[in-house]
């Protein structure tokens, strides 16, 4: 049994850690190569033309996993308003047409998440005992949480570092180190070590960087390839980035706290109420609320990232234009036609706008 899965941010580190801990005899985990233009090209070639970018990217990633010999593929599934519900079914048919004999196992991401996760691990590891599964999952998740913790520091440092790119370099080293960690203790040590290193990065102490919030559709917001490293680029322009949506947050609430009746979006939904009063699927409702929230929290601007033709985000975009809150919005629609240079030009203009609004722009 060779198990493959599509890339999504740093999820591969968790999956790898869980698989290492459970090591089922004879089975192998296949990690597809990091996303590149080739992944996108493959995905675009074999997807329906009007499918959304996450569909195309995950399909490309799955094809790459199949090329490495995967015969079982993990894909997310949901019952919902958004296209995600049909990803697995469509992609399975497409892979069959391409001649790969792969079976799909689904991770339910909209309801019965815990049960579905347990079932998934049980199926893939030939009934590993529950205690072992739990310890493995927690170990895998601890890496995810640690990485997101480091990323928060990176986002702050990028904006004010003197030597642009240093924080990012350290972050990449941290990802690799985290990938190799085999013990809880090591994870903790790496977290501490790298946060310390990041804090020692020489920074401009007098700078007061503009702050920007990032939100939108979860896949394109979290996967750097899908948004062309917009966070890094904003950092280069001296902008501090804040992103509510992280993998660890999703896990923390969706897998655990939501079961206790704690809704992480309660405040955001409340703020969105005057404009959108019910769920419109995907992250549309949350996007509207987050714009309002960032405006209330005194941010200088927001970046809204959505895949082309994403239904919930189009609702959000249409509604967002008429919210009372006065905050500049940078909309990034990501699809296979996007070009980085175009985005950079627009980003520069956006950052100039933010500076002018703060009153410290240079008049030309």
């Amino acid at each position, binding site marked *: 049994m060779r198990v493959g899965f599509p890339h999504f941010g740093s999820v591969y580190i968790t999956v790898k850690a869980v698989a290492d801990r459970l090591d089922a005899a004879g089975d192998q985990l296949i990690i597809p190569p990091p996303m590149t233009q080739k992944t996108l090209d493959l995905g675009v070639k074999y997807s*329906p*033309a*009007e*499918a*959304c970018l996450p569909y195309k990217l995950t399909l490309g990633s799955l094809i790459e996993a199949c090329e490495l010999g995967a015969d079982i593929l993990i894909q997310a599934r949901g*019952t*919902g*308003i*958004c*296209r995600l*519900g*049909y990803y697995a*079914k*469509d992609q399975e*048919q497409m892979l069959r047409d391409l001649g790969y004999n792969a079976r799909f196992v689904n991770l339910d991401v909209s309801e019965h998440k815990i049960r579905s996760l347990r079932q998934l691990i049980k199926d893939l590891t030939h009934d590993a005992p529950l205690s072992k599964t739990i310890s493995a999952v927690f170990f895998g998740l601890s890496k995810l949480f640690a990485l997101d913790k480091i990323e928060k520091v990176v986002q702050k440092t990028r904006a004010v570092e003197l030597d642009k790119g240093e924080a990012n370099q350290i972050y990449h080293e941290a990802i690799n180190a985290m990938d190799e960690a085999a013990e809880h203790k090591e994870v903790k040590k790496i977290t501490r070590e790298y946060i310390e290193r990041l804090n020692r990065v020489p920074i401009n102490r007098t700078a007061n960087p503009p702050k920007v919030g990032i939100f939108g559709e979860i896949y394109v917001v979290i996967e750097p390839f899908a948004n062309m490293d917009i966070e890094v680029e904003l950092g280069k322009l001296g902008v501090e980035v804040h992103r509510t949506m992280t993998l660890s947050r999703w896990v923390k609430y969706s897998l655990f706290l939501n079961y206790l009746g704690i809704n992480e979006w309660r405040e955001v939904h409340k703020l969105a109420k005057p*404009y*959108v*009063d*019910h*769920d*419109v*699927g*995907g992250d*549309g409702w949350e996007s509207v609320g987050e714009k309002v929230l960032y405006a209330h929290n005194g941010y200088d601007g927001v970046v809204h990232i959505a895949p*082309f*033709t*994403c*239904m*919930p985000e*189009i*609702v959000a*975009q*249409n*509604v967002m*234009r*008429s919210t009372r809150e006065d905050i500049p919005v940078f909309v990034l*629609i990501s699809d296979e036609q996007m070009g980085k240079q175009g985005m950079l030009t627009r980003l520069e203009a956006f950052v100039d706008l933010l500076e002018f609004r703060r009153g410290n722009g240079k008049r030309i």
Partner: protein
Amino acid sequence: MTKVGIPRALLYYQYYPAWKAFFETLGAEVVVSAPTNKAMLNSGVSRAVADTCLPVKILLGHLISLTNDCDYIFVPAVTSLGQKTYNCSKIIGLPNIARALVPESPIILDPEIDLEKGRYYLYRNIYKTGHYFTSNPFKIKRAVEAALERNFAYRRKMPDLGITPTQALNGNEDKDLDYRQGSEGSMRIAVIGHPYVLYDDYINHNLISQLQSMGAKVFVPEMVPGYMLDVATTRLAGEAHWSFENDIIGAGEYYLEQKVDGIVNLSVFGCGPDSMMVKFLEHRAKEVKVPFLPLSIDEHSSEGALLTRLEAFVDMVKRREKLCV
């Protein structure tokens, strides 16, 4: 008399008779916007974000045209019509989009129809809407009953008589009985697509009558009885997620089974559900060797391009028949 405006767009083609019965029983006058025209399209397009799909832009155009003529505008949010099936986000968020982009409109009545949330939630939402017209709950109940009755009659009429919603709404049913029988040996073409694209003749450039004038007998999804749709959808795509999409691909599968000579799929550029689901249908059409023409339209599509492709398709179907016979 209070006037309620109903835009002639999106769900109008599915539910207008029911809505009309509901508001008229409540003692309101129903005003329907004029058929889509260029001015409406332009005003709608100018308001919405560019990525928004054409039907939503058209709805906005109709809303704008209604603003001065009525006291209320009815734009419901039809979220869910069954267990675990939903609609496209844009249909769910329709009242919100409308309110945000047409701020000058009169009060928008927006009951959320969500059967997932249970019966009580539905009743409460309908009651809230009815409350704008009367405070007598029994009158509202009577209106709902009248609406349901009209809806069932309307739904049944189309498969029974073999007519399109346009004909059913206009009330010219007699003429269409012989249209259904048609002349023997003419080719039978199923046109599959969302009702708000198929029956809005302005945006689809009279697709159905063009096909008929080319000598085809045209079948539309509404002519398939409801219970057949569910069966066909399940066979094609397993458990279903989008109610309106199910009707379409279910009808497609049904017509494939009935061995039509060709299928024309009319979808709107950027339609999310279509982009995923029509693939199943296309796949099946390939399997059973039925010609399949996917057409995609948006506000820029021209009549000439559509006609050329349609003529080529019809010619191909005719030639195929000759070869087979």
